[in-house]
């Protein structure tokens, strides 16, 4: 093979690799993104029933309930219009507290949101942008 042919071959192989890779990447990305829904959207039935997603808002005051025999907790999140129940089997993050923003990742099961992960932020004055956007103008006051 001449040098020119070799280079051509090399470029061809590289292009094919890139094409295959990008198809795989985009496919994988599609199946691995989780969308964010506000409690109002979930109540309105906009959230997928069979796929994981994230829900977020303010944790309603005095809504946190602990199961006496396990680490299971239940709480309500609200966007000031609707509220939705979240169940979580695990230890809540340090910065989780009632009256503050939180985001949970999980899926719907029998009308409640079963969380696999609950996030609250390092910085207490910091509001996750999704939550800030989802909040309906209402009686919400900064903590």
């Amino acid at each position, binding site marked *: 093979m001449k*040098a020119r042919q*070799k280079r051509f*071959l*090399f470029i061809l192989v*590289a292009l094919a690799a*890139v094409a295959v*890779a990008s198809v*795989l*990447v985009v496919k*994988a*990305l599609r199946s*691995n*993104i*989780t*969308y*964010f829904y506000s409690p109002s959207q979930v109540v309105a039935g906009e959230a997928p029933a069979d796929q994981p997603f*994230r829900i977020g808002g303010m944790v309603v005051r005095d809504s946190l309930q*602990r199961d*006496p*025999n*396990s*680490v299971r907790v239940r709480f309500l999140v609200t966007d000031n219009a609707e509220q939705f129940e979240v169940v979580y*089997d*695990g*230890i*809540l993050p*340090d*910065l989780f507290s009632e009256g503050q923003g939180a985001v949970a*990742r999980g899926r719907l099961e029998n009308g409640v949101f079963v969380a696999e992960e609950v*996030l609250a*932020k*390092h*910085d*207490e*004055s*910091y509001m*996750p*942008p*999704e939550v800030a*956007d989802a909040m309906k103008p209402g009686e919400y006051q900064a903590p």
Partner: protein
Amino acid sequence: MIPELGHFALILALCLALVQAAFPLIGSLNRTPSWVALARPLAWGQFAFLALSFAALVQAFLGDDFSVLYVAQHGNTQLPLIYKISAVWGAHEGSLLLWALILAGWMVAVATFSRNLPREMVARVLSVMGMISIGFLSFMLFTSNPFDRVFPAPLEGGELNPLLQDPGLAIHPPMLYMGYVGMSVAFSFAIAALLGGKMDAAWARWSRPWTLVAWVFLTIGITLGSWWAYYELGWGGWWFWDPVENASFMPWLAGTALVHSLAVTEKRGAFKRWTVLLALLAFSLSLLGTFLVRSGVLTSVHAFATDPERGLFILMFLCLVIGGSLSLYAWRAPSISRGGGFDLVSRESLLLGNNLLLVLITALVLLGTLAPLLYDAMGWGKISVGFPWFNAMFVLFSPLMILLMGAGPLTRWKHHSPPELLRTLRVAFVVSVAAGIAAALPLLTGSISAGIAVALSVWLLSTLLAGLRQRLQRRSGIKGLLADWKAQGGRAYHGMWLAHLGIATFIIGVTFVTQFDIEKDVRMAPGDEIELNQYLFRFEGAAPHQGPNYRAQRGTVRVFKDEREVALLHPEKRVYQVQTKPMTEAGIDAGFMRDIYVSLGEPLGGGAWSVRLYYKPFVRWIWLGGIFIALGGLLAASDPRYRMRLREKVGARAAGKRFGAESTA
């Protein structure tokens, strides 16, 4: 008064940066030696003023001067001394000052250790660094001045974020910044070479040690950050694919590619354009990282409070730097000469393959990091890209990379006949496949991914050993090792060896901890016992405990294995006095083969707590790998050939002196 001095010094540093960005560069282009000669003293001047400014801020923290807004927000009279100092870079304004100081430090280093370089080159490099400095200093002065006063001054400060009150995190940001900012040296060398139109093996040889050192700092910074997250965040994760972590990982990946492609450019004169592009890319990604962290555009556990004005400023700066450097590249790159040719089976090809893979992975991380922004901007909904995607991407591409990594050092430059190469690699291949199959057997782990990881790791190890054997045979056996250490290129080789060994270690750590870690969130009352993978955990309750600036509930957990006590752990739940945030301090029994990790959740009444129990096999190997990689990089950077010309010159000067002395005698 002192804060005003600090502020004033900052302004003077900016003035010097303005001069430095313009005069040495212009002087080097129109051959005005006096302007070129300005570069070094200006770099020193900038460093002196920034050091003064930094010292002023440190003093404000040490003296609890709460009339300075930044100190009032993040300082506190009760803070232990070390955290009063680390509070200086614990938040936005101060960390920018540290950034600028480190940039000036790199300038001074370039000015000092580049006496063997042509003066024009040094002048251009320092001018480009001056331009970067202008960007950061004006950003600081116009949007985030750490010396702003507050009136009336509060009596007590708001305290450093308790999460940051940790020795690991006191040094994590400086290390990371050394790496980020260090990439600006490689960037400036590339821009200077593009401006001067001369790009040869010497250019690569000059950039190489600088790039290596910056990359080593980045490695240390990332490793420290991961270690910190593991023991401080209280849930045992060591990497989250968080935007801010990705922001530090992307320049590292690009820097890794750069370090390797610089090697090709130095040895073979090939890949010049590619190398320049990587140098521009690595620093641009460092800047992008800053933008992501500082602007709050992405949801991140590390995000500081959002400030759109700051975000806009950095975004403009970013566009200017990336746009400017890429335009310059587009303009000058065609004039860069081509390097030597090479065959399909040659070390160049394998390195190129690995470079492409590294850039591909960088692009994927970038895609995953920016996808939420993209989706939001296009109105496709609010999304987050989870763990699984990033992990899948890595699992997909890294085995290929590791195969190339093993073969690369055993392959000759330019041309290696494929049958001969296969013969060389045969033994290593058989050994690693056998090891992989053995590890995957049900008797040992019964896990296919563990088998693959072991195979890849052994592949790296055995190819490294084969390479070492070849090298020592050529250098008269084991005795040759010491000579090799002093010879040119010897340390670079052994540095490569160590760094690749680090990757082998890292693979084992990552795979085993991901595959075999066991975690349990449980409710435990005093006296409760829970068994987890042959370990018996007994919770003996929690009691109040008083720290220097926090109160804590301190739990006691005894861990037994085969009736024998192996660890006594004291996980804590702390509440810091000022910020009153609860904080988890995990109790960890660290070991070479496994960690036992216990952290307290919340009190559940009646002395019971929710408790997190973990068994983490081989988790230490992850950071051990990082340490090997960093040490390897340092070793390579200390190779004598980077100091060669310097020594020749010093020798010549010394000879001249002796001669002069004799003639006057």
